[in-house]
């Protein structure tokens, strides 16, 4: 998978919040084989962030995708992105502009506005968006080269709520890397997204809040690899009628008579 001219071997991106401890987090990253981790600047690094968490994340070897989590306006997100570039030394930014505090859904208008400013400023923007095609086009116009549509509201674990709309988005943007971001609760849901042809999946709570986050990280890594392999292999089309899978040729002649 290639995102902003960077080749990545894993199609799983993991968030780093809410784990029982940093040790469990880093073990989960390793077990999942995850190559990109998101870090929220607002929370994790208030006023410099030399608290000791950051070196633990760096030691995982995963690429850092800073996140403007919790921003409610374009200006707030832009400022946070600029701070993140200084703190983390990367021009990658997951752009999240929240439109509603209860549903945490993206504000598409502010998102496009912030994306335009940040892309012009040299950022590689990963916008957290809906499955709306026109918003997606505007984000591409703004300079984004990756889109991250939601599966379901953040932290809800509901899986892909609008499968038809997501299929349409995949079909509409065949060559843009599309990453399902948010709402994934189970490995089967991640596998489904991958079977549908999405390029990657970004999730956090489903692993962080699992009974055993390390084992769940491994399960997601496997599910995403399986889903991608299935997509590449080509899924059979669904049929309305039953089709026997046992060949008729060579069926045993039991010699009971009557048929001949």
């Amino acid at each position, binding site marked *: 998978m290639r995102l902003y001219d960077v080749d990545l071997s894993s199609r799983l991106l993991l968030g780093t919040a809410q784990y029982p401890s940093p040790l*469990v987090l880093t073990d989960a990253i390793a077990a999942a084989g995850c190559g990109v981790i998101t870090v929220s600047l607002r929370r994790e690094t208030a006023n410099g962030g030399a608290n000791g968490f950051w070196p633990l994340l760096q030691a995982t070897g995963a690429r850092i995708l800073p996140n403007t989590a919790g921003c409610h306006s374009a200006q707030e997100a832009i400022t946070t992105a600029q701070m993140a570039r200084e703190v983390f030394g990367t021009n990658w930014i997951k752009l999240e502009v929240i439109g509603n505090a209860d549903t945490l859904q993206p504000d598409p208008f502010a998102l496009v506005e912030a994306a335009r400013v940040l892309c012009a400023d040299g950022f590689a923007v990963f916008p957290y968006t809906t499955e709306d095609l026109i918003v997606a086009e505007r984000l591409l116009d703004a300079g984004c080269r990756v889109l991250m549509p939601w599966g379901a509201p953040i932290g809800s674990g509901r899986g892909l709520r609008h499968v038809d709309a997501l299929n349409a988005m995949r079909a509409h943007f065949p060559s843009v890397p599309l990453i399902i971001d948010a709402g994934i609760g189970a490995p089967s849901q991640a596998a489904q997204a991958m079977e549908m042809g999405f390029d990657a999946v970004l999730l956090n709570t489903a692993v962080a809040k699992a009974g055993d986050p390390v084992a769940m990280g491994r399960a997601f890594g496997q599910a995403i690899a399986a889903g991608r392999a299935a997509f590449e292999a080509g899924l059979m089309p669904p049929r309305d009628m039953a089709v026997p899978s046992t060949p008729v040729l060579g069926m045993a002649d039991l010699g009971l008579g009557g048929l001949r």
Partner: protein
Amino acid sequence: MITILGAGVAGLCAATVLAERGLSVEVVDSGPEGAGASWLAGGMLAPFVEAESAPPEVARLGATAAEWWAARVPGVVRHGTLVVAPARDRAELDRFATRTTGYARIGADRIAELEPALAGRFANALLYEAEAHLDPRVALQALADGLRQRRVAIRYDTHLAPDQANIDCRGIAARDTLLGLRAVRGEMLLLHCPNVTLTRPIRLLHPRFPVYVVPREGGRFMVGATMVESDAVGPVTLRSASELMSAAFALHPGFAEAAIVEMGSGLRPAFADNVPRLTQAAGRWHLNGLYRHGFLTAPALAKQLADEIDLAPQEAAFAH
């Protein structure tokens, strides 16, 4: 003479256990009394509830904490812990139950019996009957008084080079020696709200702002605490304050009338696995990484320390 650096919960527990075993100790702290992270703690002795996110080692260390404290300080209340969730977050309660043991599921009638102030507010709760709580400030002062009665000197506002001490209990300040130690910022509120009466710590499960309210003497309540991966030492942020206040208000609307007596922020010392431990480094013992489990685990760690020192002759125990 054994010199202990740090007069927080770790240092005072270590001094108490060592003094009780007849050893000659002193405690030195670079700050004034009541300036460290221990002063801001919740004071919940909740090994079962903490097991939701803490490794089993923490529950094991904390298993006898309530007895230890009750034998030494006033105000240890053994009414258990009540865990509740707003109706729409009921799944959080089920999730919490699957991660913990030592609870009874109770309904609205029993909740009303235990905590009349919460009558009609929650349909379900988890009651962890074996747990306890204390007021950290009362407890630390009582330990200090007990030490002075044993003629143990506690010197505040006194600077001493760490390598002059035998036992290092400085919390996050020991990062200069313990490289794996990190800071987890916590923020809390102290409310005065005589119109609400609670008799045990209440944990409110909320997917975004899990919070606890611990009753103190005199109509006061401690509301805590945020967990931020940061070593920022500044005052409580508006965001954190509003989260804590919203959660308190969601628990009981009577908190709307509360006076905010204090807002505090401090840095919890934690290792990467969030498990407290006794270690040796730079020629001295370290009792550190107590994270959010200071009052729960300090007595057991102090006993471990005393056992180590008991096993060795005085000179050998401190010659590393």
